[in-house]
């Protein structure tokens, strides 16, 4: 595990052709930045500032792996996901993606700068499942036409073949083929999320972004959908980027986990080391805040309570972005120098001036 393949921050020359991307890596995000302009005025819109939602983050994901990206609202996790898919145009940085091309040979493309015709191919191979199963399905389309739409867009198969594929996909996600002619409103939240998964699977992607896929669901339904995602990964060899705010869900599904705060990555490690040996004070606070359904543990737990709220990303604090709320912050260091994202243990990356392993439950 200590080889360079775990290295998320590999400097690349400007003209890199990504030939050094190891074979087993499907996605490498390099110095990704996404800014949103703040404008003023109605007729003559003037840019008066920018929100850096994602501020220079780097990571990579291996084939068949699940990387969990956690953080609280406004930390930039969804913006990262959307920039990776180029649903948002990254302001700067590279997103190298190993695309499966027709002949079976892989091709590495930079999603951030790829031309339109290349993107069309890339999009077949990377799909997304959205958080809200109520908003992400068109209420006027039948389930069959929702799931078949990607096939139609790419001109796959005849009408009959597409319908067969739809029925097969419905079975894969645990719904009945008879459901094909119904409309989304006839389904519960969990079933709708399954329809969203079936649609994402229709073009046989190799990489899927799951953006809070279970946070709108009830606990018992959440478990069903998590089990489904697990099964699909085993059967189809999928690679997931799993975005969530719930650390216990992320622990369940991920192989590696990255924690974000205010547009920056603060810690990244294997699932085991992150949860058993967290080093960043924000990770400690975040974990200690997560309730555990066990009265004995809960009643005897020391909580690390953070002061105040997350600062505005328009005007992030200087130095370490967490210094305003950090119990360990030292004036003169943390509020001046930005901590480097360092590999303190093999595969365990932390951005903190004073990292320290701490048990939190």
């Amino acid at each position: 595990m200590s080889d360079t393949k775990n290295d998320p921050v590999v400097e690349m020359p400007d003209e890199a052709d990504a030939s050094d991307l190891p074979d087993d890596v499907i996605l490498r995000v390099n110095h990704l930045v996404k800014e949103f302009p703040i404008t003023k005025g109605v007729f003559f819109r003037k840019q008066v500032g920018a929100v850096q939602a994602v501020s220079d983050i780097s990571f990579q994901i291996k084939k068949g792996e699940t990387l969990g990206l956690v953080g609280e609202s406004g930390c930039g996790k969804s913006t990262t996901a959307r920039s990776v898919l180029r649903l948002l145009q990254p302001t700067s940085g590279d997103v190298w993606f190993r695309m499966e091309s027709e002949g079976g040979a892989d091709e590495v493309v930079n999603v951030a700068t790829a031309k339109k015709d290349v993107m069309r191919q890339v999009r077949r191979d990377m799909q997304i499942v959205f958080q809200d199963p109520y908003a992400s399905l068109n209420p006027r389309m039948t389930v069959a036409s929702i799931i078949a739409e990607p096939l139609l867009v790419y001109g796959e198969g005849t009408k009959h073949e597409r319908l067969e594929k739809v029925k097969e996909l419905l079975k894969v996600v645990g719904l009945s083929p008879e459901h094909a002619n119904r409309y989304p409103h006839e389904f519960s939240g969990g079933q709708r999320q399954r329809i969203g998964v079936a649609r994402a699977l229709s073009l046989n992607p190799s990489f899927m972004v799951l953006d809070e896929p279970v946070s709108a669901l009830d606990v018992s339904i959440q478990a069903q959908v998590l089990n489904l995602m697990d099964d699909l990964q085993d059967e189809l060899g999928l690679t997931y980027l799993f975005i969530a705010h719930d650390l216990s869900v992320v622990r369940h599904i991920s192989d590696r986990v990255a924690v974000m705060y205010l547009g920056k990555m603060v810690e990244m490690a294997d699932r085991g080391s992150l949860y058993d040996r967290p080093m960043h004070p924000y990770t400690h606070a975040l974990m200690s805040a997560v309730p555990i359904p066990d009265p004995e543990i809960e009643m005897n737990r020391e909580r690390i309570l953070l002061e105040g709220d997350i600062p505005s990303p328009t005007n992030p604090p200087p130095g370490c972005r967490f210094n305003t709320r950090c119990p360990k912050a030292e004036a003169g260091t943390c509020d001046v120098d930005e901590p480097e994202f360092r590999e303190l243990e093999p595969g365990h990356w932390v951005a903190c001036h004073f990292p320290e392993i701490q048990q939190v439950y």
Partner: protein
Amino acid sequence: MTEPLLEVDDLRTYFSTEEGIVRAVDGISFSMNAGERLGVVGESGSGKSVTALSVMGLIEPPAGQIVTGRIMFKGRNLLELDEDELQAVRGGQIAMIFQDPMTALNPVYTIGDQLMETILLHQDVNRAEAREIAIQAIEDVHIPNAKAQMLDYPHQYSGGMRQRIMIAMGLSCNPDLLIADEPTTALDVTTQAQIMDLMLQLADDRGTAVMLITHDLGVVAGFCNDAQVMYAGGIVESGKIDDIYYNPQHPYTWGLLGSMTRLDDEQRHRLHSVRGAPPSVIDLPQGCRFRPRCDFATEICGQVLPALREVGNPGQQAACHHAEELNLHEMTAGEPPAVEEVSS
């Protein structure tokens, strides 16, 4: 044993809709003692919020109606009070905190005005005294610079700060009972920890009873003494929280615990997951409402609705025909049940 603070007896709250009658709460009975912290746990549509609204007298006819039942609060049946008497209880002796602190606060009034309104309504004080009480209430929820904050509007606050104001408002009249309906669901987890910590401390200091309505078994574990689990309009299990978590008697409670991902779970095991989805409250199944999703159902479950009865540890109750035979606590959630064990 003194008289309980709140005693709900065979409460049925129905709503008439175009599709039919929604039996949102269908025959529940429970009681709370002074200073007790009760967790009401359930998934969407289980009737937990309607239970709270019924106790608060916030069910509006003709759409919603309390069909039968008694809600005894400090010896009086709340269902028999007229609007004025109810108004005196509501906000004064029973206060409520809602899930979404933005919609619960009025955006065009200052924080101070809204706090003082409640205080002036329920306490015999003049404006200057009400102002003092309001400032104290803001300080009590650990918001610095309380005097200046009185002039702020809700939009100037973050979600966590707004929920603090809601708590300040709820506790400003020293109620006997605080009903908190999903108070932290809309908040981030670190803010949730702050708010739950604050509520626990304030309720403990003042001896306020709290009914915590939530879908999150984790939050209940750290806050409540007792809990009751609701499913499709009924209570399926109730008891001390240790009994509910370590010795569940109802298959739904057991399934819910097995469905939860846990922060301290080292193994990446398969989640138990209760199959299927909750029934429509318009068209409830015959017999036990959990039967269609239950791994242990037998013939009787399809015929007779099981009543809540003492089973398991003292004080623990469950509504399951097979509670005694199942020994759920000996089974790891996640393991498929051995069907032979329960054939009876």
